[in-house]
């Protein structure tokens, strides 16, 4: 198992390195610089700013300087927010976004698995069609639409829940989490339905019934474990996707999270910030993919013993 994890991490190093390099040169090739503004600043002021952030050096020197900083864990100063380092900004936004992502995923799991399992128990009946149709809408409903819609209904007409903020008013975490989690709930529902249908047709489910187990045990104990493995494998990429995709939700609900920084950095051409968030997010993607692969393998005893045997 350890060998598997180490080899996966080793494979990730060139991936992240190439991502850093490509991003470094891509952002600099994009038109517009970090200090361009609508009201043009004086040329000497601009030069001084560029010197301060080492932008006056030849590109390759900037690149190697960045790499050596990065090797020491330094992501550099933000161009947009003077006096703040990228590390600082990332670590102030991360807990908020991570918490938002966690709740969103939790909601996605609870709603998605329930809907998917219910649908799989009576395929091609109303109990299947209704949740699956909702899931389809959920997948395609963009959060820039769902968010305002929820705000309108629960925040403004019903006045049940606060419509913005994070952690300042009780209940203000509910709407953003639902908005972010909805699409994932829909995917989870489809995945768990397909997974459960597959498992429910297995011979060992018949064995369980032949033992006289009550139906809830047949489903809950024998079918769920295997049926949800595709969902577990999906969670890693999903969590990484949530972190990167939380921008819209964080904007709608005024949440000071990482997603806003990620997208704003690109708009502001805040070079160090773009690189910092990209490095950070791609590392997280690698990490979460690995965790969910390991978890999915761990749930499957056959794979588990193969992995602990040192094999791959």
């Amino acid at each position, binding site marked *: 198992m350890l060998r598997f994890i180490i080899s996966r991490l080793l494979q990730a190093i060139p991936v992240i390195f190439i991502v850093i390099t490509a991003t470094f040169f891509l952002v600099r090739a*994009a*038109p*517009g610089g970090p200090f*361009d503004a*609508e009201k*043009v600043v004086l040329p000497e002021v601009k030069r001084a700013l560029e010197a301060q952030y080492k932008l006056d050096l030849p590109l390759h020197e900037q690149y190697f300087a960045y790499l050596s900083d990065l090797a020491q864990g330094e992501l550099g100063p933000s161009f947009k927010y003077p006096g703040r380092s990228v590390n600082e900004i990332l670590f102030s936004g991360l807990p908020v976004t991570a918490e938002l992502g966690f709740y969103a995923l939790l909601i996605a799991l609870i709603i998605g698995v329930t809907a998917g399992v219910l649908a799989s128990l009576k395929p091609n009946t109303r109990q299947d069609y209704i949740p699956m149709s909702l899931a389809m809408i959920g997948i395609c409903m963009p959060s820039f639409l769902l968010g305002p819609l929820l705000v309108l209904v629960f925040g403004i007409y019903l006045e049940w829940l606060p419509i913005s903020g994070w952690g300042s008013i009780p209940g203000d975490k509910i709407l953003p989490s639902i908005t972010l989690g909805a699409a994932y709930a829909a995917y989870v529902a489809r995945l768990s339905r397909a997974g459960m249908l597959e498992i429910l047709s297995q011979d060992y489910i018949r064995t369980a019934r032949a033992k006289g187990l009550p139906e809830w045990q047949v489903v809950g104990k024998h079918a769920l474990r295997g049926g949800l493995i595709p969902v577990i494998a999906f969670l890693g990429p999903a969590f990484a996707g949530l972190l990167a995709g939380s921008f819209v939700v964080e904007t709608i609900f005024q949440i000071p999270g990482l997603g806003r920084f990620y997208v704003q950095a690109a708009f502001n051409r805040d070079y160090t910030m773009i690189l910092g968030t990209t490095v950070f997010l791609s590392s997280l993607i690698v990490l979460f993919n690995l965790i969910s692969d390991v978890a999915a393998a761990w749930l499957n005893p056959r794979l588990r013993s193969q992995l602990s045997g040192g094999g791959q």
Partner: protein
Amino acid sequence: MVPLDKIPVYRERPNTPYLQSPYLGTYYYLVNTERPPVNNVKVRQALSMAVDREKLVRSVLQETAVPAYSITPPDTLGYFPPQVFSYDPDKARALLAEAGYPNGEGWPGLEIIYNTQEAHRKIAVAIQQMWKSELNVDITLANQEWKVYLNSVSQRDFQVARRGWIGDYVDANNFLDLFITDGGNNNTGYSNPIYDDLILQRAPRAQSREERYALFTEAETMLMEEMPIIPIYTYTSKHLIHPSVEGMYPNLMDSLNLKYVKLHPEQTLSGEVN
């Protein structure tokens, strides 16, 4: 900021919390005077005269702005800019014909760029259609991401570009000196030694306020005849002020002076009865 489309909703409420007042800023279109067809002053004048600013303000802007016919906002510290032209589609068509495009024939096309934002899009769409229906000229729109847009403007890689200027201090000079030759925010390629002389040499040496404002009027008249820019509207400051707030008065710079503001919490919006 108050969202544009929400304004009518607030306005219609009795005891409205909505408060609007003119603001030291102008929304205008930059014209690249070195690119055909807008290198022809008659074309620029025709385009400007074909914009029905009253209608634009009434419909798209929901009365949240004031039509502008000059770069300087009205009553800038007592300076009232001249109105050189007005909405005149007939004259616009005549000018366009003089420029060689009678009824839009032979028109080579024109592109308006703007940075991606709903408000800019709405203005551009409306103006595009006004030019199309009054002058029979084809206009294309191109929205650009903010930094790309800034880059296009500073590289003068455009024909017509949306622009706004918010005054740094309350004085006409702050608007008029934008268009001196090679000014950092000129971006139009406009260059007129007489204008430069007026703004840079003569106005600073004016002996009185009246003389200074007369020089400004002369310069601005010149600017509005040559039209390196097409003014669209003057900004207003827009606030939702809860009825419980007393003593908040608008000013041109829209800066809050909280010294005289009082709160009367018993006052509520008529919408919030419960």
